[in-house]
Protein backbone atom coordinates (compact mmCIF):
# COMPACT_ATOMS: atom_id res chain seq x y z
CA UNK A 1 0.00 0.00 0.00
CA UNK A 2 2.85 2.34 0.84
CA UNK A 3 4.05 2.05 -2.70
CA UNK A 4 1.04 3.78 -4.12
CA UNK A 5 1.26 6.77 -1.79
CA UNK A 6 2.58 9.73 -3.72
CA UNK A 7 2.40 12.46 -1.15
CA UNK A 8 2.51 12.02 2.56
CA UNK A 9 2.10 14.83 5.04
CA UNK A 10 2.97 14.19 8.67
CA UNK A 11 2.30 16.50 11.62
CA UNK A 12 2.50 19.57 9.47
CA UNK A 13 2.40 22.81 11.42
CA UNK A 14 2.62 26.43 10.50
CA UNK A 15 2.55 29.21 13.02
CA UNK A 16 2.72 32.88 12.39
CA UNK A 17 3.94 35.26 15.02
CA UNK A 18 1.71 38.16 15.82
CA UNK A 19 3.38 41.06 17.56
CA UNK A 20 1.34 43.32 19.73
CA UNK A 21 1.76 45.85 22.49
CA UNK A 22 4.12 48.77 22.78
CA UNK A 23 7.88 48.78 22.72
CA UNK A 24 8.50 47.70 26.27
CA UNK A 25 5.51 45.46 26.73
CA UNK A 26 5.86 43.67 23.44
CA UNK A 27 3.94 40.45 23.29
CA UNK A 28 4.41 37.76 20.73
CA UNK A 29 1.48 35.48 20.19
CA UNK A 30 1.58 32.48 17.97
CA UNK A 31 -1.21 32.06 15.50
CA UNK A 32 -1.81 28.59 14.21
CA UNK A 33 -2.54 28.57 10.52
CA UNK A 34 -2.02 24.86 10.12
CA UNK A 35 -1.93 22.68 13.17
CA UNK A 36 -0.84 19.07 13.09
CA UNK A 37 -2.15 18.06 9.74
CA UNK A 38 -1.74 14.50 8.50
CA UNK A 39 -2.87 13.13 5.20
CA UNK A 40 -1.81 11.03 2.27
CA UNK A 41 -2.51 11.33 -1.39
CA UNK A 42 -2.46 8.07 -3.30
CA UNK A 43 -1.23 7.70 -6.83
CA UNK A 44 -3.92 8.75 -9.27
CA UNK A 45 -6.48 10.01 -6.80
CA UNK A 46 -7.92 13.43 -6.22
CA UNK A 47 -7.92 14.49 -2.61
CA UNK A 48 -10.21 17.39 -1.85
CA UNK A 49 -9.44 19.75 0.96
CA UNK A 50 -12.39 21.83 1.96
CA UNK A 51 -12.95 24.38 4.63
CA UNK A 52 -13.89 27.97 5.22
CA UNK A 53 -11.70 30.96 4.39
CA UNK A 54 -8.68 31.16 6.64
CA UNK A 55 -8.82 27.57 7.80
CA UNK A 56 -5.36 26.86 6.45
CA UNK A 57 -6.10 25.00 3.26
CA UNK A 58 -4.13 27.33 1.01
CA UNK A 59 -1.30 27.49 3.54
CA UNK A 60 -1.15 23.71 3.49
CA UNK A 61 -0.92 23.71 -0.30
CA UNK A 62 1.73 26.40 -0.30
CA UNK A 63 3.82 24.37 2.12
CA UNK A 64 3.42 21.26 0.02
CA UNK A 65 4.51 23.25 -3.02
CA UNK A 66 7.44 24.65 -1.05
CA UNK A 67 6.35 28.24 -1.49
CA UNK A 68 6.38 28.56 2.25
CA UNK A 69 8.50 26.98 4.91
CA UNK A 70 6.75 24.84 7.46
CA UNK A 71 7.24 25.41 11.17
CA UNK A 72 7.23 21.73 11.94
CA UNK A 73 6.39 18.50 10.25
CA UNK A 74 7.30 16.38 7.32
CA UNK A 75 6.19 16.33 3.72
CA UNK A 76 7.35 13.44 1.61
CA UNK A 77 6.83 13.25 -2.08
CA UNK A 78 7.69 10.01 -3.90
CA UNK A 79 9.52 9.00 -0.75
CA UNK A 80 11.68 12.13 -0.65
CA UNK A 81 11.35 14.40 2.33
CA UNK A 82 10.86 17.85 0.86
CA UNK A 83 11.50 19.70 4.07
CA UNK A 84 15.23 19.18 4.18
CA UNK A 85 15.96 19.92 0.54
CA UNK A 86 18.09 22.80 -0.61
CA UNK A 87 16.63 25.41 -2.92
CA UNK A 88 18.26 23.93 -6.03
CA UNK A 89 17.03 20.43 -5.19
CA UNK A 90 13.55 21.76 -4.52
CA UNK A 91 13.55 23.34 -7.96
CA UNK A 92 14.25 19.94 -9.49
CA UNK A 93 11.35 18.36 -7.62
CA UNK A 94 9.09 21.14 -8.86
CA UNK A 95 9.21 19.65 -12.31
CA UNK A 96 7.06 16.85 -10.96
CA UNK A 97 4.68 18.93 -8.91
CA UNK A 98 2.90 21.97 -10.19
CA UNK A 99 0.26 24.29 -8.89
CA UNK A 100 -2.83 25.89 -10.35
CA UNK A 101 -3.68 29.14 -8.64
CA UNK A 102 -6.96 30.68 -7.70
CA UNK A 103 -6.97 33.93 -9.65
CA UNK A 104 -6.41 33.56 -13.38
CA UNK A 105 -6.27 37.35 -13.72
CA UNK A 106 -3.27 37.51 -11.44
CA UNK A 107 -1.17 34.46 -12.23
CA UNK A 108 -0.40 35.26 -15.85
CA UNK A 109 2.08 38.08 -16.37
CA UNK A 110 0.18 40.72 -18.37
CA UNK A 111 3.30 41.70 -20.29
CA UNK A 112 4.05 38.23 -21.62
CA UNK A 113 2.53 36.44 -24.57
CA UNK A 114 0.97 32.99 -24.09
CA UNK A 115 3.97 31.57 -25.93
CA UNK A 116 6.38 33.02 -23.37
CA UNK A 117 4.17 32.09 -20.44
CA UNK A 118 4.10 28.45 -21.52
CA UNK A 119 7.80 28.46 -22.39
CA UNK A 120 8.67 29.47 -18.87
CA UNK A 121 8.34 26.00 -17.28
CA UNK A 122 10.14 24.40 -20.22
CA UNK A 123 12.99 26.86 -19.98
CA UNK A 124 13.20 26.32 -16.26
CA UNK A 125 13.65 22.57 -16.54
CA UNK A 126 14.41 21.54 -20.11
CA UNK A 127 16.26 24.54 -21.44
CA UNK A 128 18.58 22.54 -23.67
CA UNK A 129 15.89 21.10 -25.92
CA UNK A 130 15.88 22.40 -29.49
CA UNK A 131 13.40 25.18 -30.09
CA UNK A 132 11.19 23.10 -32.40
CA UNK A 133 10.63 20.51 -29.66
CA UNK A 134 9.80 23.18 -27.15
CA UNK A 135 7.41 24.83 -29.58
CA UNK A 136 5.68 21.52 -30.25
CA UNK A 137 5.24 21.03 -26.52
CA UNK A 138 3.63 24.42 -26.19
CA UNK A 139 1.23 23.67 -29.05
CA UNK A 140 0.41 20.27 -27.55
CA UNK A 141 -0.30 21.81 -24.18
CA UNK A 142 -2.65 24.40 -25.68
CA UNK A 143 -4.43 21.67 -27.58
CA UNK A 144 -4.68 19.55 -24.45
CA UNK A 145 -6.64 22.30 -22.73
CA UNK A 146 -9.02 22.50 -25.66
CA UNK A 147 -8.17 25.93 -26.98
CA UNK A 148 -8.21 25.50 -30.72
CA UNK A 149 -6.58 26.37 -33.01
CA UNK A 150 -3.51 26.57 -30.81
CA UNK A 151 -1.60 28.81 -33.24
CA UNK A 152 -4.27 31.45 -32.75
CA UNK A 153 -3.61 31.72 -29.08
CA UNK A 154 0.12 31.51 -29.01
CA UNK A 155 0.76 35.16 -29.76
CA UNK A 156 -1.97 36.63 -27.62
CA UNK A 157 -1.56 38.48 -24.38
CA UNK A 158 -3.52 37.38 -21.29
CA UNK A 159 -5.78 40.43 -21.43
CA UNK A 160 -7.07 39.23 -24.79
CA UNK A 161 -8.47 36.09 -23.17
CA UNK A 162 -11.53 35.50 -21.04
CA UNK A 163 -11.30 34.34 -17.45
CA UNK A 164 -12.01 30.74 -18.38
CA UNK A 165 -9.44 30.79 -21.15
CA UNK A 166 -6.87 32.29 -18.82
CA UNK A 167 -7.46 29.56 -16.27
CA UNK A 168 -7.03 27.03 -19.07
CA UNK A 169 -3.70 28.61 -19.93
CA UNK A 170 -2.73 28.42 -16.27
CA UNK A 171 -3.63 24.72 -16.37
CA UNK A 172 -1.60 24.29 -19.55
CA UNK A 173 1.37 25.84 -17.78
CA UNK A 174 0.94 23.37 -14.94
CA UNK A 175 0.70 20.26 -17.14
CA UNK A 176 3.23 21.17 -19.81
CA UNK A 177 6.05 19.36 -18.02
CA UNK A 178 3.85 16.32 -17.49
CA UNK A 179 4.03 16.44 -13.70
CA UNK A 180 2.80 13.60 -11.56
CA UNK A 181 1.17 15.82 -8.98
CA UNK A 182 -0.89 18.97 -9.21
CA UNK A 183 -2.16 21.16 -6.42
CA UNK A 184 -5.18 23.13 -7.54
CA UNK A 185 -5.98 26.02 -5.22
CA UNK A 186 -9.63 26.89 -5.76
CA UNK A 187 -9.19 26.91 -9.53
CA UNK A 188 -12.82 27.74 -10.22
CA UNK A 189 -13.73 30.13 -7.44
CA UNK A 190 -13.00 33.25 -9.49
CA UNK A 191 -14.86 32.05 -12.54
CA UNK A 192 -18.43 32.34 -13.68
CA UNK A 193 -20.59 29.38 -12.84
CA UNK A 194 -21.10 28.75 -16.54
CA UNK A 195 -17.37 28.29 -17.15
CA UNK A 196 -16.76 26.30 -14.01
CA UNK A 197 -18.08 22.97 -15.22
CA UNK A 198 -15.86 23.19 -18.29
CA UNK A 199 -12.73 23.70 -16.21
CA UNK A 200 -13.67 20.91 -13.79
CA UNK A 201 -14.35 18.48 -16.62
CA UNK A 202 -11.07 19.47 -18.24
CA UNK A 203 -9.22 18.66 -15.04
CA UNK A 204 -10.97 15.29 -14.75
CA UNK A 205 -10.20 14.61 -18.37
CA UNK A 206 -6.53 15.45 -17.98
CA UNK A 207 -6.34 13.29 -14.93
CA UNK A 208 -7.63 10.35 -16.93
CA UNK A 209 -5.27 11.00 -19.84
CA UNK A 210 -2.13 11.81 -17.90
CA UNK A 211 -2.71 9.81 -14.75
CA UNK A 212 -2.49 12.93 -12.64
CA UNK A 213 -2.66 12.92 -8.90
CA UNK A 214 -4.30 15.99 -7.51
CA UNK A 215 -4.86 17.93 -4.39
CA UNK A 216 -7.98 19.94 -4.98
CA UNK A 217 -8.63 22.80 -2.64
CA UNK A 218 -12.06 24.36 -2.51
CA UNK A 219 -14.56 25.87 -0.14
CA UNK A 220 -17.43 24.48 -2.10
CA UNK A 221 -18.68 21.07 -1.07
CA UNK A 222 -20.57 20.45 -4.29
CA UNK A 223 -17.47 21.10 -6.40
CA UNK A 224 -15.46 18.86 -4.12
CA UNK A 225 -17.98 16.04 -4.30
CA UNK A 226 -17.95 16.26 -8.09
CA UNK A 227 -14.17 16.20 -8.37
CA UNK A 228 -12.70 14.25 -5.52
CA UNK A 229 -12.22 10.64 -4.57
CA UNK A 230 -11.56 11.53 -0.98
CA UNK A 231 -12.29 14.64 1.00
CA UNK A 232 -10.51 16.14 3.97
CA UNK A 233 -12.47 18.74 5.90
CA UNK A 234 -10.34 21.37 7.56
CA UNK A 235 -11.34 23.59 10.39
CA UNK A 236 -9.01 26.10 12.03
CA UNK A 237 -5.87 24.49 10.76
CA UNK A 238 -6.92 20.96 11.60
CA UNK A 239 -8.36 18.16 9.61
CA UNK A 240 -11.57 17.36 11.42
CA UNK A 241 -12.77 14.65 9.13
CA UNK A 242 -11.28 12.71 6.28
CA UNK A 243 -12.73 9.93 4.20
CA UNK A 244 -14.07 8.80 0.85
CA UNK A 245 -16.34 11.40 -0.78
CA UNK A 246 -19.39 9.17 -0.61
CA UNK A 247 -19.06 8.59 3.11
CA UNK A 248 -18.40 12.24 3.88
CA UNK A 249 -21.45 13.33 1.96
CA UNK A 250 -23.78 10.55 3.08
CA UNK A 251 -22.62 10.01 6.63
CA UNK A 252 -20.88 13.13 7.83
CA UNK A 253 -19.69 12.51 11.37
CA UNK A 254 -18.25 15.81 12.53
CA UNK A 255 -20.77 18.51 13.41
CA UNK A 256 -18.93 20.96 11.13
CA UNK A 257 -19.12 18.62 8.18
CA UNK A 258 -22.76 18.00 8.99
CA UNK A 259 -23.45 21.70 8.81
CA UNK A 260 -21.65 22.00 5.50
CA UNK A 261 -23.44 19.04 4.03
CA UNK A 262 -26.81 20.13 5.31
CA UNK A 263 -26.59 23.49 3.61
CA UNK A 264 -25.82 21.96 0.26
CA UNK A 265 -28.04 18.94 0.50
CA UNK A 266 -31.36 20.11 1.60
CA UNK A 267 -32.45 23.61 2.31
CA UNK A 268 -35.57 22.38 4.08
CA UNK A 269 -33.54 20.39 6.53
CA UNK A 270 -31.43 23.44 7.10
CA UNK A 271 -34.43 25.62 7.88
CA UNK A 272 -35.93 23.06 10.25
CA UNK A 273 -32.75 22.44 12.17
CA UNK A 274 -31.46 25.94 12.07
CA UNK A 275 -30.65 26.18 15.74
CA UNK A 276 -28.67 23.01 15.71
CA UNK A 277 -26.72 23.75 12.59
CA UNK A 278 -26.01 27.40 12.63
CA UNK A 279 -22.37 28.20 13.08
CA UNK A 280 -22.07 30.94 15.55
CA UNK A 281 -19.33 32.51 17.55
CA UNK A 282 -15.94 34.04 16.99
CA UNK A 283 -13.10 32.25 15.32
CA UNK A 284 -9.97 32.74 17.35
CA UNK A 285 -6.91 30.82 16.31
CA UNK A 286 -4.57 32.53 18.75
CA UNK A 287 -5.80 30.96 21.93
CA UNK A 288 -3.99 28.10 23.47
CA UNK A 289 -4.87 24.63 22.51
CA UNK A 290 -7.43 23.52 25.01
CA UNK A 291 -10.20 21.32 23.89
CA UNK A 292 -11.80 20.95 20.53
CA UNK A 293 -11.15 23.84 18.11
CA UNK A 294 -14.78 23.76 17.07
CA UNK A 295 -16.21 23.95 20.58
CA UNK A 296 -17.19 27.62 20.42
CA UNK A 297 -19.47 27.04 17.46
CA UNK A 298 -20.52 23.48 18.06
CA UNK A 299 -24.18 22.75 18.81
CA UNK A 300 -23.45 19.45 20.61
CA UNK A 301 -20.66 20.35 23.01
CA UNK A 302 -20.00 18.27 26.08
CA UNK A 303 -17.71 18.71 29.06
CA UNK A 304 -14.87 16.84 27.41
CA UNK A 305 -14.98 19.11 24.40
CA UNK A 306 -13.69 22.01 26.48
CA UNK A 307 -10.75 20.22 28.00
CA UNK A 308 -9.59 17.51 25.66
CA UNK A 309 -8.28 17.87 22.17
CA UNK A 310 -10.00 15.25 20.03
CA UNK A 311 -7.81 13.03 17.88
CA UNK A 312 -8.63 11.63 14.49
CA UNK A 313 -10.41 8.31 15.08
CA UNK A 314 -11.49 5.78 12.55
CA UNK A 315 -15.23 5.45 12.24
CA UNK A 316 -15.09 3.24 9.22
CA UNK A 317 -12.46 1.93 6.88
CA UNK A 318 -10.60 4.94 5.53
CA UNK A 319 -12.94 7.36 7.21
CA UNK A 320 -11.77 9.19 10.30
CA UNK A 321 -13.12 12.03 12.34
CA UNK A 322 -11.90 14.08 15.25
CA UNK A 323 -14.87 14.60 17.53
CA UNK A 324 -15.62 13.37 21.02
CA UNK A 325 -19.28 12.88 20.39
CA UNK A 326 -19.36 11.40 16.91
CA UNK A 327 -20.70 8.03 18.01
CA UNK A 328 -23.69 9.53 19.76
CA UNK A 329 -24.26 11.88 16.90
CA UNK A 330 -24.26 9.01 14.48
CA UNK A 331 -26.95 7.26 16.48
CA UNK A 332 -29.01 10.40 16.71
CA UNK A 333 -29.15 10.95 12.98
CA UNK A 334 -29.66 7.38 11.91
Amino acid at each position, binding site marked *: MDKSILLKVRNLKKTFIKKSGTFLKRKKTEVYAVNNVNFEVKQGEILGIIGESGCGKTTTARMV*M*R*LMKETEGEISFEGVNLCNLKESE*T*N*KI*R*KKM*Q*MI*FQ*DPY*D*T*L*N*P*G*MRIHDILM*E*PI*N*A*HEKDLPYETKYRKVIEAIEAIELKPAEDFINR*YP*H*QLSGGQRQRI*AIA*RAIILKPSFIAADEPTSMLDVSVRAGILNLLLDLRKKMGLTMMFITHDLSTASYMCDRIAVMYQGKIVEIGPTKKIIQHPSHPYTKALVAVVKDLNYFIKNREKLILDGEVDSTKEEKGCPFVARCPHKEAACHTQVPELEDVDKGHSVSCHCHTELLEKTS
Partner: protein
Amino acid sequence: MVNQKWKKYWQVLTSNNIGLFGLILLVIFLLIALLAPILAPFDPSARVGDPFMKPNSQFLLGTNDVGQDILSELLYGTRISLLIGVIAAFISILLGCLVGIISGYYGGKTDAFLMRLVDLVLVIPFLPLMILLAAFIGPSFWNIVLVISLISWASPARVIRSQVLTLKTKGYVEAAKSIGTNITVILGRHILPGVIPIALSQFVLAASHSILIEASLSFLGLGDPFTKSWGTILYYAQARGAFLTDAWIWWVLPPGLLITTLVIGFAFTGYSLEEILNPRLRKER
Protein backbone atom coordinates in the same frame (compact mmCIF):
# COMPACT_ATOMS: atom_id res chain seq x y z
CA MET B 1 -0.01 45.19 -26.20
CA VAL B 2 3.40 46.53 -25.32
CA ASN B 3 3.29 48.83 -28.31
CA GLN B 4 -0.19 49.96 -27.40
CA LYS B 5 0.97 50.67 -23.90
CA TRP B 6 3.82 52.89 -25.07
CA LYS B 7 1.51 54.61 -27.52
CA LYS B 8 -0.85 55.33 -24.68
CA TYR B 9 2.02 56.69 -22.57
CA TRP B 10 3.07 58.89 -25.45
CA GLN B 11 -0.49 60.19 -25.71
CA VAL B 12 -0.67 61.05 -22.03
CA LEU B 13 2.72 62.71 -22.23
CA THR B 14 1.86 64.85 -25.20
CA SER B 15 -1.72 65.61 -24.19
CA ASN B 16 -0.26 67.19 -21.08
CA ASN B 17 0.88 70.73 -21.78
CA ILE B 18 3.51 70.76 -19.08
CA GLY B 19 4.98 67.46 -20.21
CA LEU B 20 5.05 68.52 -23.82
CA PHE B 21 6.70 71.82 -22.89
CA GLY B 22 9.35 70.00 -20.87
CA LEU B 23 9.99 67.58 -23.68
CA ILE B 24 10.37 70.40 -26.21
CA LEU B 25 12.86 72.15 -23.94
CA LEU B 26 14.87 68.96 -23.63
CA VAL B 27 14.91 68.47 -27.40
CA ILE B 28 16.08 72.05 -27.91
CA PHE B 29 18.92 71.60 -25.43
CA LEU B 30 19.88 68.31 -26.99
CA LEU B 31 20.07 70.00 -30.39
CA ILE B 32 22.17 72.84 -28.98
CA ALA B 33 24.56 70.35 -27.42
CA LEU B 34 24.87 68.33 -30.61
CA LEU B 35 25.18 71.32 -32.92
CA ALA B 36 27.43 73.44 -30.70
CA PRO B 37 30.32 73.45 -33.21
CA ILE B 38 28.00 74.81 -35.90
CA LEU B 39 26.09 77.26 -33.74
CA ALA B 40 29.04 78.74 -31.86
CA PRO B 41 30.61 81.71 -33.62
CA PHE B 42 34.04 81.14 -32.08
CA ASP B 43 36.21 78.49 -30.50
CA PRO B 44 35.25 78.77 -26.80
CA SER B 45 38.83 78.30 -25.62
CA ALA B 46 40.47 80.76 -28.01
CA ARG B 47 41.18 84.38 -27.17
CA VAL B 48 39.20 86.09 -29.87
CA GLY B 49 38.74 89.59 -28.48
CA ASP B 50 39.80 92.01 -25.81
CA PRO B 51 39.00 91.08 -22.23
CA PHE B 52 35.80 92.33 -20.59
CA MET B 53 34.12 93.52 -23.79
CA LYS B 54 30.50 94.58 -23.62
CA PRO B 55 28.00 92.81 -25.91
CA ASN B 56 28.33 94.08 -29.48
CA SER B 57 27.53 92.87 -32.97
CA GLN B 58 30.56 90.58 -33.04
CA PHE B 59 30.36 89.18 -29.50
CA LEU B 60 26.67 88.93 -28.72
CA LEU B 61 27.26 88.33 -25.02
CA GLY B 62 30.59 90.07 -24.74
CA THR B 63 33.87 88.47 -23.74
CA ASN B 64 35.26 87.23 -20.44
CA ASP B 65 38.37 88.17 -18.53
CA VAL B 66 40.73 86.54 -21.05
CA GLY B 67 38.86 87.58 -24.18
CA GLN B 68 36.92 84.38 -24.88
CA ASP B 69 33.47 84.65 -26.43
CA ILE B 70 30.86 84.03 -23.71
CA LEU B 71 28.15 82.89 -26.14
CA SER B 72 30.39 80.18 -27.55
CA GLU B 73 31.36 79.14 -24.05
CA LEU B 74 27.69 78.80 -23.13
CA LEU B 75 26.85 76.75 -26.22
CA TYR B 76 29.70 74.36 -25.61
CA GLY B 77 28.91 74.34 -21.88
CA THR B 78 25.52 72.80 -22.70
CA ARG B 79 27.32 69.61 -23.67
CA ILE B 80 29.11 69.31 -20.35
CA SER B 81 26.13 70.19 -18.19
CA LEU B 82 23.81 67.85 -20.05
CA LEU B 83 26.33 65.03 -20.20
CA ILE B 84 27.21 65.17 -16.53
CA GLY B 85 23.53 65.36 -15.59
CA VAL B 86 22.53 62.41 -17.72
CA ILE B 87 25.47 60.17 -16.90
CA ALA B 88 25.26 60.83 -13.18
CA ALA B 89 21.52 60.23 -13.22
CA PHE B 90 21.98 57.02 -15.17
CA ILE B 91 24.52 55.65 -12.73
CA SER B 92 22.47 56.60 -9.72
CA ILE B 93 19.35 54.97 -11.20
CA LEU B 94 21.31 51.84 -12.01
CA LEU B 95 22.55 51.70 -8.46
CA GLY B 96 19.09 52.56 -7.16
CA CYS B 97 17.48 49.77 -9.20
CA LEU B 98 20.00 47.24 -7.97
CA VAL B 99 19.60 48.17 -4.33
CA GLY B 100 15.82 48.59 -4.63
CA ILE B 101 15.25 45.25 -6.32
CA ILE B 102 17.52 43.27 -4.01
CA SER B 103 16.13 44.95 -0.96
CA GLY B 104 12.50 44.60 -2.02
CA TYR B 105 12.70 41.07 -3.32
CA TYR B 106 14.80 39.43 -0.64
CA GLY B 107 13.36 41.35 2.29
CA GLY B 108 14.31 40.46 5.84
CA LYS B 109 17.75 41.40 7.07
CA THR B 110 19.10 42.35 3.66
CA ASP B 111 16.22 44.76 3.29
CA ALA B 112 16.68 46.21 6.76
CA PHE B 113 20.40 46.74 6.20
CA LEU B 114 20.06 48.32 2.78
CA MET B 115 17.22 50.57 3.84
CA ARG B 116 19.15 51.86 6.85
CA LEU B 117 21.98 52.61 4.45
CA VAL B 118 19.52 54.52 2.28
CA ASP B 119 18.31 56.43 5.34
CA LEU B 120 21.89 57.31 6.13
CA VAL B 121 22.57 58.63 2.64
CA LEU B 122 19.28 60.52 2.60
CA VAL B 123 19.87 62.41 5.84
CA ILE B 124 23.47 63.40 5.16
CA PRO B 125 23.59 67.12 4.41
CA PHE B 126 24.56 66.61 0.84
CA LEU B 127 26.18 69.88 -0.18
CA PRO B 128 28.90 69.94 2.50
CA LEU B 129 29.61 66.26 1.90
CA MET B 130 29.89 66.76 -1.81
CA ILE B 131 32.18 69.73 -1.40
CA LEU B 132 34.33 67.61 0.87
CA LEU B 133 34.31 64.67 -1.53
CA ALA B 134 34.93 66.79 -4.60
CA ALA B 135 37.75 68.63 -2.89
CA PHE B 136 39.22 65.39 -1.59
CA ILE B 137 39.27 63.37 -4.80
CA GLY B 138 40.02 66.37 -6.96
CA PRO B 139 38.07 68.09 -9.69
CA SER B 140 37.55 66.17 -12.92
CA PHE B 141 34.64 65.21 -15.12
CA TRP B 142 34.35 61.65 -13.82
CA ASN B 143 34.91 62.60 -10.22
CA ILE B 144 32.01 65.00 -10.40
CA VAL B 145 29.86 62.26 -11.91
CA LEU B 146 30.94 59.86 -9.18
CA VAL B 147 30.21 62.32 -6.40
CA ILE B 148 26.76 63.10 -7.74
CA SER B 149 25.85 59.43 -8.21
CA LEU B 150 27.04 58.52 -4.73
CA ILE B 151 24.65 61.03 -3.27
CA SER B 152 21.59 60.56 -5.41
CA TRP B 153 21.02 56.80 -5.70
CA ALA B 154 19.20 56.60 -2.39
CA SER B 155 15.80 58.06 -3.14
CA PRO B 156 15.30 56.13 -6.42
CA ALA B 157 16.30 52.99 -4.52
CA ARG B 158 13.51 53.58 -2.05
CA VAL B 159 10.90 54.27 -4.72
CA ILE B 160 11.91 51.20 -6.68
CA ARG B 161 11.91 49.03 -3.59
CA SER B 162 8.31 49.92 -2.87
CA GLN B 163 7.38 49.02 -6.44
CA VAL B 164 9.16 45.68 -6.11
CA LEU B 165 7.27 45.03 -2.88
CA THR B 166 3.97 45.27 -4.72
CA LEU B 167 5.24 43.33 -7.72
CA LYS B 168 6.48 40.41 -5.73
CA THR B 169 3.06 39.69 -4.26
CA LYS B 170 1.62 39.32 -7.75
CA GLY B 171 0.34 35.88 -8.60
CA TYR B 172 2.60 35.48 -11.58
CA VAL B 173 5.72 35.88 -9.47
CA GLU B 174 4.48 33.20 -7.10
CA ALA B 175 3.52 31.03 -10.07
CA ALA B 176 7.01 31.41 -11.51
CA LYS B 177 8.44 30.31 -8.18
CA SER B 178 6.21 27.26 -8.03
CA ILE B 179 7.21 26.36 -11.57
CA GLY B 180 10.81 26.26 -10.45
CA THR B 181 12.08 29.23 -12.43
CA ASN B 182 15.36 30.38 -10.99
CA ILE B 183 15.65 33.66 -9.24
CA THR B 184 17.59 35.62 -11.85
CA VAL B 185 14.95 34.80 -14.45
CA ILE B 186 12.17 35.83 -12.06
CA LEU B 187 13.89 39.14 -11.38
CA GLY B 188 14.64 39.74 -15.06
CA ARG B 189 11.37 38.65 -16.65
CA HIS B 190 8.79 39.44 -14.02
CA ILE B 191 10.13 42.10 -11.70
CA LEU B 192 12.30 44.30 -13.92
CA PRO B 193 9.67 45.07 -16.60
CA GLY B 194 7.40 46.39 -13.88
CA VAL B 195 10.16 48.55 -12.48
CA ILE B 196 11.37 50.14 -15.72
CA PRO B 197 8.62 52.78 -16.15
CA ILE B 198 9.18 54.02 -12.60
CA ALA B 199 12.92 53.96 -13.10
CA LEU B 200 12.45 56.09 -16.21
CA SER B 201 10.58 58.84 -14.40
CA GLN B 202 13.06 58.66 -11.54
CA PHE B 203 15.85 58.98 -14.07
CA VAL B 204 14.47 62.19 -15.51
CA LEU B 205 14.03 63.73 -12.07
CA ALA B 206 17.48 62.58 -11.01
CA ALA B 207 18.93 64.19 -14.13
CA SER B 208 17.47 67.55 -13.17
CA HIS B 209 18.93 67.20 -9.68
CA SER B 210 22.29 66.18 -11.04
CA ILE B 211 22.47 69.24 -13.28
CA LEU B 212 21.74 71.50 -10.35
CA ILE B 213 24.30 69.79 -8.17
CA GLU B 214 26.90 69.96 -10.92
CA ALA B 215 26.23 73.68 -11.31
CA SER B 216 26.61 74.25 -7.58
CA LEU B 217 29.86 72.30 -7.40
CA SER B 218 31.30 74.05 -10.43
CA PHE B 219 30.23 77.43 -9.11
CA LEU B 220 32.22 76.70 -5.98
CA GLY B 221 35.25 76.02 -8.15
CA LEU B 222 35.14 72.26 -7.72
CA GLY B 223 34.27 71.56 -11.34
CA ASP B 224 36.60 70.29 -14.02
CA PRO B 225 38.75 73.29 -15.01
CA PHE B 226 39.36 71.92 -18.51
CA THR B 227 35.77 71.34 -19.54
CA LYS B 228 33.77 74.45 -18.87
CA SER B 229 30.19 73.87 -17.86
CA TRP B 230 27.65 76.57 -17.10
CA GLY B 231 28.56 76.33 -13.45
CA THR B 232 32.24 76.88 -14.27
CA ILE B 233 31.36 79.98 -16.30
CA LEU B 234 29.49 81.32 -13.28
CA TYR B 235 32.49 80.53 -11.11
CA TYR B 236 34.78 82.63 -13.31
CA ALA B 237 32.20 85.40 -13.53
CA GLN B 238 32.05 85.50 -9.76
CA ALA B 239 35.82 85.30 -9.37
CA ARG B 240 36.35 88.19 -11.79
CA GLY B 241 33.84 90.41 -10.05
CA ALA B 242 31.11 90.25 -12.70
CA PHE B 243 28.49 90.09 -9.97
CA LEU B 244 29.41 93.61 -8.88
CA THR B 245 29.51 95.31 -12.26
CA ASP B 246 27.14 95.67 -15.18
CA ALA B 247 28.65 92.53 -16.64
CA TRP B 248 26.21 90.37 -14.65
CA ILE B 249 23.60 91.01 -17.33
CA TRP B 250 25.57 89.17 -20.02
CA TRP B 251 27.94 87.06 -17.97
CA VAL B 252 25.90 85.85 -14.99
CA LEU B 253 22.30 85.96 -16.11
CA PRO B 254 22.54 83.82 -19.31
CA PRO B 255 24.16 80.73 -17.71
CA GLY B 256 21.80 81.07 -14.76
CA LEU B 257 18.79 81.15 -17.04
CA LEU B 258 20.06 78.21 -19.05
CA ILE B 259 20.51 76.09 -15.93
CA THR B 260 17.02 77.01 -14.76
CA THR B 261 15.42 76.21 -18.11
CA LEU B 262 17.16 72.87 -18.48
CA VAL B 263 16.22 71.85 -14.95
CA ILE B 264 12.64 72.92 -15.61
CA GLY B 265 12.65 70.91 -18.82
CA PHE B 266 13.71 67.77 -16.96
CA ALA B 267 11.40 68.40 -14.03
CA PHE B 268 8.31 68.96 -16.20
CA THR B 269 9.03 65.86 -18.24
CA GLY B 270 9.56 63.94 -15.04
CA TYR B 271 6.31 65.08 -13.48
CA SER B 272 4.28 64.13 -16.50
CA LEU B 273 6.05 60.78 -16.63
CA GLU B 274 4.96 60.26 -13.05
CA GLU B 275 1.46 61.09 -14.11
CA ILE B 276 1.63 58.36 -16.70
CA LEU B 277 2.77 55.83 -14.13
CA ASN B 278 0.36 56.84 -11.48
CA PRO B 279 -3.03 56.95 -13.20
CA ARG B 280 -4.64 58.47 -10.14
CA LEU B 281 -2.74 61.68 -10.87
CA ARG B 282 -4.15 61.82 -14.38
CA LYS B 283 -6.65 64.52 -14.98
CA GLU B 284 -9.82 63.73 -16.81
CA ARG B 285 -9.76 65.36 -20.16
